[in-house]
Protein backbone atom coordinates (compact mmCIF):
# COMPACT_ATOMS: atom_id res chain seq x y z
CA UNK A 1 0.00 0.00 0.00
CA UNK A 2 2.66 2.64 0.84
CA UNK A 3 4.59 1.65 -2.29
CA UNK A 4 1.64 2.09 -4.58
CA UNK A 5 0.68 5.41 -3.06
CA UNK A 6 4.23 6.71 -3.41
CA UNK A 7 4.28 5.61 -7.03
CA UNK A 8 0.85 6.93 -7.85
CA UNK A 9 1.55 10.63 -7.75
CA UNK A 10 4.55 10.64 -10.14
CA UNK A 11 2.64 8.40 -12.53
CA UNK A 12 -0.28 10.80 -12.57
CA UNK A 13 2.05 13.68 -13.23
CA UNK A 14 3.75 11.72 -15.97
CA UNK A 15 0.39 11.17 -17.61
CA UNK A 16 -0.42 14.86 -17.57
CA UNK A 17 3.01 15.96 -18.67
CA UNK A 18 2.66 13.68 -21.69
CA UNK A 19 -0.85 15.01 -22.25
CA UNK A 20 0.40 18.59 -22.13
CA UNK A 21 3.28 17.87 -24.46
CA UNK A 22 0.87 16.27 -26.92
CA UNK A 23 -1.26 19.41 -26.80
CA UNK A 24 1.58 21.88 -27.20
CA UNK A 25 4.01 20.05 -29.45
CA UNK A 26 2.27 20.68 -32.80
CA UNK A 27 2.15 24.43 -32.15
CA UNK A 28 5.82 24.55 -31.31
CA UNK A 29 6.66 22.52 -34.40
CA UNK A 30 4.76 24.87 -36.70
CA UNK A 31 6.39 27.88 -35.07
CA UNK A 32 9.83 26.38 -35.48
CA UNK A 33 9.23 25.64 -39.15
CA UNK A 34 8.08 29.21 -39.67
CA UNK A 35 11.44 30.53 -38.45
CA UNK A 36 13.56 27.89 -40.18
CA UNK A 37 15.74 28.59 -43.11
CA UNK A 38 14.25 27.18 -46.32
CA UNK A 39 17.39 25.24 -47.15
CA UNK A 40 17.44 23.59 -43.76
CA UNK A 41 13.81 22.49 -44.29
CA UNK A 42 14.75 21.01 -47.65
CA UNK A 43 17.60 19.15 -46.02
CA UNK A 44 16.18 17.93 -42.73
CA UNK A 45 12.45 18.32 -43.17
CA UNK A 46 10.36 19.92 -40.45
CA UNK A 47 12.11 19.64 -37.16
CA UNK A 48 11.84 21.05 -33.68
CA UNK A 49 15.37 22.39 -33.68
CA UNK A 50 16.06 24.12 -36.98
CA UNK A 51 19.69 23.94 -38.06
CA UNK A 52 19.50 27.55 -39.21
CA UNK A 53 17.12 30.23 -38.01
CA UNK A 54 15.84 32.68 -40.55
CA UNK A 55 12.97 35.14 -40.38
CA UNK A 56 12.70 35.41 -44.17
CA UNK A 57 9.16 33.99 -44.17
CA UNK A 58 7.88 36.73 -41.90
CA UNK A 59 9.81 39.32 -43.85
CA UNK A 60 8.22 38.05 -47.01
CA UNK A 61 4.73 38.24 -45.52
CA UNK A 62 5.29 41.77 -44.28
CA UNK A 63 6.61 42.95 -47.63
CA UNK A 64 3.50 41.72 -49.32
CA UNK A 65 1.08 42.74 -46.67
CA UNK A 66 -1.91 43.76 -48.86
CA UNK A 67 -4.04 40.62 -48.74
CA UNK A 68 -3.09 39.68 -45.19
CA UNK A 69 -3.89 43.11 -43.82
CA UNK A 70 -7.24 43.11 -45.57
CA UNK A 71 -8.15 39.66 -44.31
CA UNK A 72 -7.08 40.56 -40.82
CA UNK A 73 -9.19 43.70 -41.00
CA UNK A 74 -12.23 41.74 -42.19
CA UNK A 75 -11.78 39.21 -39.39
CA UNK A 76 -11.46 41.89 -36.72
CA UNK A 77 -14.42 43.90 -38.00
CA UNK A 78 -16.67 40.84 -38.27
CA UNK A 79 -15.59 39.60 -34.86
CA UNK A 80 -16.30 42.95 -33.17
CA UNK A 81 -19.68 43.55 -34.78
CA UNK A 82 -20.70 39.91 -34.51
CA UNK A 83 -19.76 39.52 -30.86
CA UNK A 84 -21.53 42.71 -29.79
CA UNK A 85 -24.76 42.13 -31.69
CA UNK A 86 -24.82 38.47 -30.79
CA UNK A 87 -24.34 39.13 -27.07
CA UNK A 88 -27.12 41.70 -27.17
CA UNK A 89 -29.59 39.41 -28.94
CA UNK A 90 -28.73 36.43 -26.74
CA UNK A 91 -29.35 38.44 -23.58
CA UNK A 92 -32.60 39.87 -24.91
CA UNK A 93 -33.84 36.37 -25.72
CA UNK A 94 -32.59 34.68 -22.56
CA UNK A 95 -33.87 37.19 -20.03
CA UNK A 96 -37.60 36.92 -20.85
CA UNK A 97 -37.28 33.13 -20.94
CA UNK A 98 -35.94 33.23 -17.39
CA UNK A 99 -39.00 35.09 -16.11
CA UNK A 100 -41.82 32.86 -14.97
CA UNK A 101 -44.59 35.31 -15.84
CA UNK A 102 -43.83 35.46 -19.56
CA UNK A 103 -46.77 34.47 -21.73
CA UNK A 104 -45.99 31.74 -24.31
CA UNK A 105 -42.79 30.90 -22.44
CA UNK A 106 -43.04 27.19 -23.16
CA UNK A 107 -43.73 27.77 -26.84
CA UNK A 108 -40.69 30.01 -27.18
CA UNK A 109 -38.46 27.54 -25.37
CA UNK A 110 -39.72 24.83 -27.66
CA UNK A 111 -38.93 26.90 -30.75
CA UNK A 112 -35.44 27.45 -29.41
CA UNK A 113 -34.90 23.73 -28.87
CA UNK A 114 -36.42 22.84 -32.17
CA UNK A 115 -34.05 25.06 -34.14
CA UNK A 116 -31.16 23.71 -32.12
CA UNK A 117 -32.03 20.13 -32.95
CA UNK A 118 -33.62 20.14 -36.34
CA UNK A 119 -32.92 21.94 -39.55
CA UNK A 120 -33.72 21.56 -43.21
CA UNK A 121 -30.09 20.76 -43.90
CA UNK A 122 -27.34 22.75 -45.44
CA UNK A 123 -28.70 23.28 -48.95
CA UNK A 124 -32.05 24.88 -48.09
CA UNK A 125 -30.21 26.94 -45.51
CA UNK A 126 -27.72 28.14 -48.08
CA UNK A 127 -30.27 28.79 -50.81
CA UNK A 128 -32.46 30.77 -48.44
CA UNK A 129 -29.62 33.04 -47.39
CA UNK A 130 -28.36 33.56 -50.91
CA UNK A 131 -31.51 33.92 -52.97
CA UNK A 132 -34.00 35.32 -50.47
CA UNK A 133 -31.83 37.43 -48.20
CA UNK A 134 -28.96 38.12 -50.57
CA UNK A 135 -26.00 37.58 -48.31
CA UNK A 136 -23.58 36.51 -51.03
CA UNK A 137 -20.39 38.55 -50.87
CA UNK A 138 -21.43 40.81 -48.03
CA UNK A 139 -20.01 41.12 -44.54
CA UNK A 140 -23.38 39.99 -43.21
CA UNK A 141 -22.70 36.62 -44.78
CA UNK A 142 -20.00 36.12 -42.19
CA UNK A 143 -21.99 37.59 -39.31
CA UNK A 144 -25.53 36.26 -39.52
CA UNK A 145 -25.69 32.59 -40.61
CA UNK A 146 -25.05 30.05 -37.84
CA UNK A 147 -23.17 32.38 -35.55
CA UNK A 148 -25.54 35.14 -34.55
CA UNK A 149 -27.68 33.25 -32.08
CA UNK A 150 -26.60 30.04 -30.45
CA UNK A 151 -29.35 28.16 -28.68
CA UNK A 152 -26.78 26.75 -26.29
CA UNK A 153 -25.70 30.25 -25.20
CA UNK A 154 -29.31 31.28 -24.70
CA UNK A 155 -29.86 28.29 -22.41
CA UNK A 156 -26.65 29.02 -20.53
CA UNK A 157 -27.71 32.61 -19.94
CA UNK A 158 -31.27 31.69 -19.15
CA UNK A 159 -30.27 29.33 -16.37
CA UNK A 160 -27.85 31.95 -15.00
CA UNK A 161 -30.61 34.58 -14.89
CA UNK A 162 -33.07 32.12 -13.38
CA UNK A 163 -30.65 30.94 -10.69
CA UNK A 164 -28.79 34.05 -9.64
CA UNK A 165 -31.08 37.04 -10.14
CA UNK A 166 -33.35 37.08 -7.08
CA UNK A 167 -37.03 37.54 -7.83
CA UNK A 168 -37.18 40.26 -5.18
CA UNK A 169 -34.80 42.54 -7.08
CA UNK A 170 -37.06 42.53 -10.13
CA UNK A 171 -40.07 43.10 -7.87
CA UNK A 172 -38.42 46.02 -6.10
CA UNK A 173 -37.75 47.57 -9.49
CA UNK A 174 -41.39 47.15 -10.48
CA UNK A 175 -42.55 48.74 -7.22
CA UNK A 176 -40.32 51.75 -7.83
CA UNK A 177 -42.06 52.15 -11.16
CA UNK A 178 -39.19 51.14 -13.44
CA UNK A 179 -40.06 49.87 -16.89
CA UNK A 180 -39.05 46.36 -17.96
CA UNK A 181 -36.25 47.81 -20.06
CA UNK A 182 -34.86 49.84 -17.15
CA UNK A 183 -34.99 46.80 -14.89
CA UNK A 184 -33.10 44.80 -17.48
CA UNK A 185 -30.45 47.40 -18.20
CA UNK A 186 -29.94 48.82 -14.70
CA UNK A 187 -30.48 45.78 -12.48
CA UNK A 188 -30.13 42.54 -14.39
CA UNK A 189 -27.20 43.28 -16.69
CA UNK A 190 -24.84 44.62 -13.99
CA UNK A 191 -25.58 41.57 -11.83
CA UNK A 192 -24.80 39.22 -14.71
CA UNK A 193 -21.29 40.32 -15.61
CA UNK A 194 -19.77 36.82 -15.33
CA UNK A 195 -22.20 35.16 -17.75
CA UNK A 196 -22.04 38.13 -20.11
CA UNK A 197 -18.27 37.82 -20.25
CA UNK A 198 -18.46 34.08 -20.80
CA UNK A 199 -20.96 34.29 -23.64
CA UNK A 200 -19.05 37.19 -25.19
CA UNK A 201 -15.93 35.04 -25.12
CA UNK A 202 -17.70 32.08 -26.74
CA UNK A 203 -18.97 34.39 -29.48
CA UNK A 204 -15.58 35.99 -29.94
CA UNK A 205 -13.92 32.61 -30.46
CA UNK A 206 -16.65 31.45 -32.82
CA UNK A 207 -16.31 34.54 -35.00
CA UNK A 208 -12.53 34.57 -34.96
CA UNK A 209 -12.33 30.88 -35.90
CA UNK A 210 -15.02 30.91 -38.57
CA UNK A 211 -14.03 29.93 -42.08
CA UNK A 212 -17.14 27.99 -43.09
CA UNK A 213 -19.37 30.98 -43.77
CA UNK A 214 -16.57 32.69 -45.60
CA UNK A 215 -16.04 29.65 -47.79
CA UNK A 216 -19.74 29.48 -48.63
CA UNK A 217 -20.73 33.09 -49.00
CA UNK A 218 -17.61 34.95 -50.07
CA UNK A 219 -15.95 34.81 -53.48
CA UNK A 220 -14.16 38.13 -53.51
CA UNK A 221 -10.61 38.15 -52.14
CA UNK A 222 -11.34 41.63 -50.74
CA UNK A 223 -13.80 40.16 -48.24
CA UNK A 224 -11.91 37.03 -47.26
CA UNK A 225 -11.19 36.54 -43.59
CA UNK A 226 -7.90 35.32 -42.23
CA UNK A 227 -9.05 31.76 -41.60
CA UNK A 228 -10.20 31.30 -45.16
CA UNK A 229 -7.02 32.88 -46.47
CA UNK A 230 -5.16 30.28 -44.43
CA UNK A 231 -7.29 27.49 -45.92
CA UNK A 232 -6.51 28.65 -49.44
CA UNK A 233 -2.84 29.07 -48.68
CA UNK A 234 -2.44 25.62 -47.17
CA UNK A 235 -3.45 24.12 -50.49
CA UNK A 236 -1.71 26.64 -52.66
CA UNK A 237 0.86 29.10 -51.39
CA UNK A 238 0.64 31.15 -54.57
CA UNK A 239 -2.86 32.16 -53.56
CA UNK A 240 -1.33 34.47 -51.02
CA UNK A 241 0.23 36.71 -53.65
CA UNK A 242 -2.72 36.52 -55.99
CA UNK A 243 -3.73 39.97 -54.86
CA UNK A 244 -0.23 41.32 -54.47
CA UNK A 245 0.20 45.00 -55.22
CA UNK A 246 3.25 44.04 -57.20
CA UNK A 247 1.32 41.95 -59.67
CA UNK A 248 3.82 42.50 -62.49
CA UNK A 249 6.55 40.87 -60.44
CA UNK A 250 4.60 37.79 -59.40
CA UNK A 251 6.98 35.43 -61.18
CA UNK A 252 9.98 36.94 -59.49
CA UNK A 253 8.25 36.97 -56.11
CA UNK A 254 7.30 33.34 -56.42
CA UNK A 255 10.79 32.24 -57.26
CA UNK A 256 12.13 33.96 -54.16
CA UNK A 257 9.37 32.83 -51.83
CA UNK A 258 10.31 30.44 -49.03
CA UNK A 259 7.11 28.44 -49.59
CA UNK A 260 7.13 26.03 -46.66
CA UNK A 261 8.13 28.70 -44.19
CA UNK A 262 5.60 31.20 -45.51
CA UNK A 263 2.80 28.71 -45.07
CA UNK A 264 3.64 28.08 -41.46
CA UNK A 265 4.32 31.75 -40.77
CA UNK A 266 0.81 32.57 -41.97
CA UNK A 267 -0.60 29.90 -39.65
CA UNK A 268 1.28 31.49 -36.76
CA UNK A 269 0.00 34.95 -37.67
CA UNK A 270 -3.55 33.62 -37.81
CA UNK A 271 -3.46 31.80 -34.48
CA UNK A 272 -1.15 34.12 -32.53
CA UNK A 273 -3.83 36.44 -31.10
CA UNK A 274 -5.65 33.46 -29.58
CA UNK A 275 -2.51 31.89 -28.16
CA UNK A 276 -1.35 35.19 -26.68
CA UNK A 277 -4.73 35.94 -25.14
CA UNK A 278 -5.38 32.38 -23.97
CA UNK A 279 -3.65 32.61 -20.57
CA UNK A 280 -5.84 35.60 -19.74
CA UNK A 281 -9.20 34.19 -20.70
CA UNK A 282 -8.76 30.47 -20.03
CA UNK A 283 -10.11 30.76 -16.49
CA UNK A 284 -13.30 32.36 -17.76
CA UNK A 285 -13.56 29.86 -20.54
CA UNK A 286 -13.21 26.86 -18.24
CA UNK A 287 -15.78 28.23 -15.81
CA UNK A 288 -18.12 28.88 -18.76
CA UNK A 289 -17.83 25.28 -19.94
CA UNK A 290 -18.35 23.89 -16.48
CA UNK A 291 -21.39 26.02 -15.69
CA UNK A 292 -22.83 25.00 -19.05
CA UNK A 293 -22.15 21.38 -18.24
CA UNK A 294 -23.59 21.36 -14.77
CA UNK A 295 -26.80 23.07 -15.77
CA UNK A 296 -27.27 22.41 -19.47
Amino acid at each position, binding site marked *: *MPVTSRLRSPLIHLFFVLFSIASLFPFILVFMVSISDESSIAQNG*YSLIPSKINFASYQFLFNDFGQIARSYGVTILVTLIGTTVSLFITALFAYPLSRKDLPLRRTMSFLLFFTMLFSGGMVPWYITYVTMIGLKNTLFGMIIPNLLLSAFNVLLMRSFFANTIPESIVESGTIDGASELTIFMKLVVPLSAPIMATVALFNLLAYWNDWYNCMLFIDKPDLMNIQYLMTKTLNNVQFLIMKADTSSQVGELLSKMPTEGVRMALAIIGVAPLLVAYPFFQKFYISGITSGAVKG
Partner: protein
Amino acid sequence: MYGVILAFKELNYVDGIWGSPWAGMYNFKFLFSSPDAFLITRNTIMYNVFFIVVNTTFALLAALLVNEIKDKVITRFYQSTFLLPHIISMVVVAYLVYSFLNTDSGLINRQLDKWFSAESISWYNEPDYWPYILVIVNAWKNVGYLAIIYFAAIIGIDKEFYEAATIDGANKWKQMTRITIPLISPMIIIMTLLAISSIMRSDFGLFYQVPMNSGPLMPTTNTIDTFVYRAMIERGDIGMSTAAGIYQSVVCFFLILGANFAVRRISKDDALF
Protein backbone atom coordinates in the same frame (compact mmCIF):
# COMPACT_ATOMS: atom_id res chain seq x y z
CA MET B 1 -37.18 25.15 -43.79
CA TYR B 2 -38.84 26.61 -46.89
CA GLY B 3 -35.95 25.33 -49.02
CA VAL B 4 -36.86 21.75 -48.12
CA ILE B 5 -39.15 21.60 -51.14
CA LEU B 6 -35.99 21.66 -53.24
CA ALA B 7 -35.61 17.97 -52.52
CA PHE B 8 -38.77 17.27 -54.45
CA LYS B 9 -37.98 19.57 -57.37
CA GLU B 10 -35.89 19.41 -60.46
CA LEU B 11 -34.32 22.80 -60.00
CA ASN B 12 -33.49 25.04 -62.91
CA TYR B 13 -32.48 28.63 -62.35
CA VAL B 14 -34.65 30.06 -65.12
CA ASP B 15 -37.92 29.09 -63.45
CA GLY B 16 -36.76 29.65 -59.88
CA ILE B 17 -37.53 27.53 -56.87
CA TRP B 18 -41.33 27.52 -57.22
CA GLY B 19 -41.40 27.44 -61.00
CA SER B 20 -39.21 24.38 -61.43
CA PRO B 21 -41.01 21.14 -62.23
CA TRP B 22 -41.77 18.67 -59.46
CA ALA B 23 -39.57 15.61 -59.38
CA GLY B 24 -41.43 13.59 -56.79
CA MET B 25 -39.19 11.18 -54.95
CA TYR B 26 -36.68 11.04 -57.83
CA ASN B 27 -33.90 12.80 -55.90
CA PHE B 28 -34.20 10.38 -53.02
CA LYS B 29 -34.26 7.36 -55.32
CA PHE B 30 -31.21 8.64 -57.13
CA LEU B 31 -29.38 9.22 -53.87
CA PHE B 32 -30.09 5.83 -52.37
CA SER B 33 -29.35 3.92 -55.55
CA SER B 34 -25.86 5.44 -55.77
CA PRO B 35 -22.99 3.63 -54.05
CA ASP B 36 -22.20 6.87 -52.19
CA ALA B 37 -25.27 6.56 -49.98
CA PHE B 38 -24.01 3.46 -48.21
CA LEU B 39 -20.43 4.73 -48.01
CA ILE B 40 -21.22 8.10 -46.46
CA THR B 41 -23.70 6.65 -43.99
CA ARG B 42 -21.23 3.99 -42.90
CA ASN B 43 -18.37 6.50 -42.57
CA THR B 44 -20.43 9.00 -40.59
CA ILE B 45 -21.72 6.41 -38.13
CA MET B 46 -18.48 4.45 -37.72
CA TYR B 47 -16.39 7.55 -37.10
CA ASN B 48 -18.84 8.83 -34.52
CA VAL B 49 -18.88 5.48 -32.71
CA PHE B 50 -15.10 5.49 -32.46
CA PHE B 51 -15.03 9.15 -31.43
CA ILE B 52 -17.49 8.48 -28.62
CA VAL B 53 -15.57 5.47 -27.28
CA VAL B 54 -12.08 6.97 -27.54
CA ASN B 55 -12.97 10.46 -26.32
CA THR B 56 -15.06 9.29 -23.39
CA THR B 57 -12.37 6.86 -22.22
CA PHE B 58 -9.55 9.39 -22.32
CA ALA B 59 -11.64 12.22 -20.93
CA LEU B 60 -12.78 10.14 -17.97
CA LEU B 61 -9.24 8.98 -17.30
CA ALA B 62 -7.97 12.56 -17.40
CA ALA B 63 -10.80 13.85 -15.21
CA LEU B 64 -10.30 11.12 -12.58
CA LEU B 65 -6.56 11.65 -12.48
CA VAL B 66 -6.67 15.43 -12.37
CA ASN B 67 -8.93 15.10 -9.36
CA GLU B 68 -6.15 13.21 -7.55
CA ILE B 69 -3.73 16.11 -7.85
CA LYS B 70 -3.94 18.26 -4.77
CA ASP B 71 -1.86 21.19 -5.96
CA LYS B 72 -4.34 23.74 -7.36
CA VAL B 73 -1.80 25.68 -9.44
CA ILE B 74 -0.56 22.59 -11.26
CA THR B 75 -4.11 21.35 -11.78
CA ARG B 76 -5.00 24.63 -13.43
CA PHE B 77 -1.90 24.49 -15.62
CA TYR B 78 -2.71 20.99 -16.86
CA GLN B 79 -6.31 21.92 -17.49
CA SER B 80 -5.41 24.92 -19.58
CA THR B 81 -2.86 23.09 -21.69
CA PHE B 82 -5.13 20.25 -22.61
CA LEU B 83 -8.00 22.58 -23.37
CA LEU B 84 -5.82 24.60 -25.74
CA PRO B 85 -6.48 22.48 -28.86
CA HIS B 86 -10.18 23.02 -28.37
CA ILE B 87 -10.10 26.79 -28.95
CA ILE B 88 -8.32 26.84 -32.29
CA SER B 89 -10.04 26.53 -35.64
CA MET B 90 -9.97 23.45 -37.83
CA VAL B 91 -7.94 25.42 -40.35
CA VAL B 92 -5.09 25.66 -37.88
CA VAL B 93 -5.53 21.97 -37.01
CA ALA B 94 -5.19 21.20 -40.72
CA TYR B 95 -1.87 23.07 -40.69
CA LEU B 96 -0.68 21.17 -37.64
CA VAL B 97 -1.58 17.83 -39.22
CA TYR B 98 0.07 18.89 -42.46
CA SER B 99 3.30 19.61 -40.62
CA PHE B 100 3.35 16.00 -39.47
CA LEU B 101 2.12 14.30 -42.65
CA ASN B 102 3.55 16.41 -45.46
CA THR B 103 5.12 13.90 -47.86
CA ASP B 104 8.44 15.66 -48.55
CA SER B 105 9.37 17.31 -45.32
CA GLY B 106 6.70 16.25 -42.81
CA LEU B 107 7.92 15.20 -39.40
CA ILE B 108 6.67 11.61 -39.59
CA ASN B 109 8.12 10.73 -42.98
CA ARG B 110 11.48 12.26 -42.07
CA GLN B 111 11.60 10.38 -38.78
CA LEU B 112 10.60 7.12 -40.49
CA ASP B 113 13.42 7.71 -42.91
CA LYS B 114 15.92 8.59 -40.21
CA TRP B 115 15.22 5.75 -37.76
CA PHE B 116 14.00 2.92 -39.96
CA SER B 117 15.14 4.12 -43.39
CA ALA B 118 11.59 3.40 -44.42
CA GLU B 119 10.16 4.82 -47.60
CA SER B 120 8.06 7.96 -47.36
CA ILE B 121 4.35 7.46 -47.23
CA SER B 122 2.21 9.70 -49.35
CA TRP B 123 -0.32 10.30 -46.59
CA TYR B 124 -2.68 12.46 -48.57
CA ASN B 125 -3.11 9.75 -51.21
CA GLU B 126 -3.54 6.69 -48.99
CA PRO B 127 -7.09 6.32 -47.70
CA ASP B 128 -6.23 3.36 -45.44
CA TYR B 129 -4.47 5.44 -42.81
CA TRP B 130 -7.15 8.09 -42.43
CA PRO B 131 -9.53 6.36 -40.04
CA TYR B 132 -6.70 6.30 -37.49
CA ILE B 133 -5.52 9.82 -38.26
CA LEU B 134 -8.99 11.31 -37.94
CA VAL B 135 -9.74 9.51 -34.68
CA ILE B 136 -6.45 10.77 -33.22
CA VAL B 137 -6.99 14.33 -34.44
CA ASN B 138 -10.53 14.39 -33.10
CA ALA B 139 -9.38 13.08 -29.72
CA TRP B 140 -6.54 15.60 -29.64
CA LYS B 141 -8.99 18.44 -30.20
CA ASN B 142 -11.90 17.37 -28.00
CA VAL B 143 -10.69 15.25 -25.08
CA GLY B 144 -9.65 18.28 -23.03
CA TYR B 145 -13.08 19.85 -23.36
CA LEU B 146 -14.90 16.68 -22.35
CA ALA B 147 -12.47 16.08 -19.50
CA ILE B 148 -13.30 19.48 -18.04
CA ILE B 149 -17.01 18.72 -18.16
CA TYR B 150 -16.45 15.43 -16.30
CA PHE B 151 -14.08 17.12 -13.88
CA ALA B 152 -16.79 19.66 -13.06
CA ALA B 153 -19.15 16.79 -12.29
CA ILE B 154 -16.56 15.15 -10.02
CA ILE B 155 -15.96 18.38 -8.10
CA GLY B 156 -19.70 18.59 -7.53
CA ILE B 157 -19.68 15.35 -5.50
CA ASP B 158 -20.19 15.85 -1.79
CA LYS B 159 -16.87 15.50 0.07
CA GLU B 160 -18.58 13.67 2.93
CA PHE B 161 -18.84 10.51 0.85
CA TYR B 162 -15.07 10.32 0.65
CA GLU B 163 -14.59 11.10 4.33
CA ALA B 164 -16.99 8.34 5.27
CA ALA B 165 -15.24 5.95 2.87
CA THR B 166 -11.81 6.79 4.30
CA ILE B 167 -13.06 6.07 7.82
CA ASP B 168 -14.40 2.74 6.57
CA GLY B 169 -10.94 2.01 5.19
CA ALA B 170 -11.65 2.23 1.49
CA ASN B 171 -8.53 2.87 -0.59
CA LYS B 172 -8.32 5.28 -3.51
CA TRP B 173 -9.19 2.63 -6.06
CA LYS B 174 -12.28 1.58 -4.11
CA GLN B 175 -13.31 5.23 -3.73
CA MET B 176 -12.94 5.79 -7.45
CA THR B 177 -14.90 2.73 -8.53
CA ARG B 178 -17.52 2.76 -5.78
CA ILE B 179 -18.14 6.49 -5.32
CA THR B 180 -16.82 8.69 -8.11
CA ILE B 181 -17.82 6.67 -11.16
CA PRO B 182 -21.32 5.73 -9.97
CA LEU B 183 -22.04 9.33 -8.98
CA ILE B 184 -20.96 10.83 -12.28
CA SER B 185 -22.42 8.04 -14.38
CA PRO B 186 -25.64 9.99 -15.12
CA MET B 187 -23.41 12.69 -16.61
CA ILE B 188 -21.50 10.15 -18.68
CA ILE B 189 -24.70 8.59 -19.92
CA ILE B 190 -26.21 11.93 -20.83
CA MET B 191 -23.13 13.11 -22.72
CA THR B 192 -23.01 9.80 -24.56
CA LEU B 193 -26.69 9.88 -25.44
CA LEU B 194 -26.33 13.40 -26.78
CA ALA B 195 -23.42 12.25 -28.89
CA ILE B 196 -25.41 9.27 -30.14
CA SER B 197 -28.31 11.51 -31.07
CA SER B 198 -26.06 13.42 -33.45
CA ILE B 199 -24.40 10.32 -34.82
CA MET B 200 -25.57 11.18 -38.33
CA ARG B 201 -23.81 14.54 -38.22
CA SER B 202 -20.12 15.04 -38.55
CA ASP B 203 -17.67 17.82 -37.87
CA PHE B 204 -17.40 19.34 -41.34
CA GLY B 205 -14.05 20.97 -40.61
CA LEU B 206 -12.48 17.73 -39.47
CA PHE B 207 -13.50 15.82 -42.58
CA TYR B 208 -12.98 18.60 -45.08
CA GLN B 209 -10.06 20.71 -43.84
CA VAL B 210 -7.84 18.09 -42.24
CA PRO B 211 -7.66 15.73 -45.28
CA MET B 212 -7.34 18.93 -47.38
CA ASN B 213 -10.26 17.93 -49.60
CA SER B 214 -8.06 15.29 -51.20
CA GLY B 215 -9.81 13.19 -53.85
CA PRO B 216 -8.07 9.82 -53.34
CA LEU B 217 -9.04 9.88 -49.65
CA MET B 218 -12.78 10.02 -50.32
CA PRO B 219 -13.53 6.35 -49.55
CA THR B 220 -12.54 6.88 -45.93
CA THR B 221 -13.08 10.60 -45.39
CA ASN B 222 -16.38 11.34 -47.11
CA THR B 223 -19.27 11.80 -44.68
CA ILE B 224 -22.81 12.98 -45.17
CA ASP B 225 -21.87 16.59 -44.45
CA THR B 226 -18.96 16.73 -46.86
CA PHE B 227 -21.01 14.84 -49.45
CA VAL B 228 -23.81 17.39 -49.25
CA TYR B 229 -21.35 20.24 -49.58
CA ARG B 230 -19.57 18.72 -52.55
CA ALA B 231 -22.79 17.77 -54.32
CA MET B 232 -24.02 21.34 -53.98
CA ILE B 233 -20.92 23.49 -54.52
CA GLU B 234 -18.75 21.34 -56.73
CA ARG B 235 -21.34 19.46 -58.79
CA GLY B 236 -24.25 21.87 -58.52
CA ASP B 237 -26.65 19.01 -57.84
CA ILE B 238 -29.10 20.89 -55.63
CA GLY B 239 -31.86 18.28 -55.62
CA MET B 240 -29.75 15.36 -54.51
CA SER B 241 -27.78 17.30 -51.92
CA THR B 242 -31.02 18.58 -50.39
CA ALA B 243 -32.34 15.03 -50.33
CA ALA B 244 -29.19 13.86 -48.54
CA GLY B 245 -29.51 16.70 -46.03
CA ILE B 246 -33.13 15.80 -45.31
CA TYR B 247 -32.28 12.13 -44.92
CA GLN B 248 -29.67 13.19 -42.34
CA SER B 249 -31.99 15.57 -40.50
CA VAL B 250 -34.90 13.16 -40.31
CA VAL B 251 -32.79 10.30 -38.93
CA CYS B 252 -31.20 12.75 -36.47
CA PHE B 253 -34.58 13.99 -35.37
CA PHE B 254 -35.76 10.53 -34.39
CA LEU B 255 -32.45 9.77 -32.70
CA ILE B 256 -32.78 12.94 -30.64
CA LEU B 257 -36.34 12.10 -29.64
CA GLY B 258 -35.13 8.65 -28.61
CA ALA B 259 -32.14 10.02 -26.72
CA ASN B 260 -34.29 12.56 -24.92
CA PHE B 261 -36.72 9.83 -23.92
CA ALA B 262 -33.81 7.80 -22.55
CA VAL B 263 -32.32 10.77 -20.69
CA ARG B 264 -35.69 11.48 -19.15
CA ARG B 265 -35.79 7.95 -17.82
CA ILE B 266 -32.33 8.33 -16.24
CA SER B 267 -32.57 11.82 -14.84
CA LYS B 268 -35.62 13.98 -15.35
CA ASP B 269 -33.79 17.26 -14.78
CA ASP B 270 -31.36 16.74 -17.60
CA ALA B 271 -33.89 15.97 -20.31
CA LEU B 272 -33.87 18.53 -23.07
CA PHE B 273 -37.63 18.89 -23.36
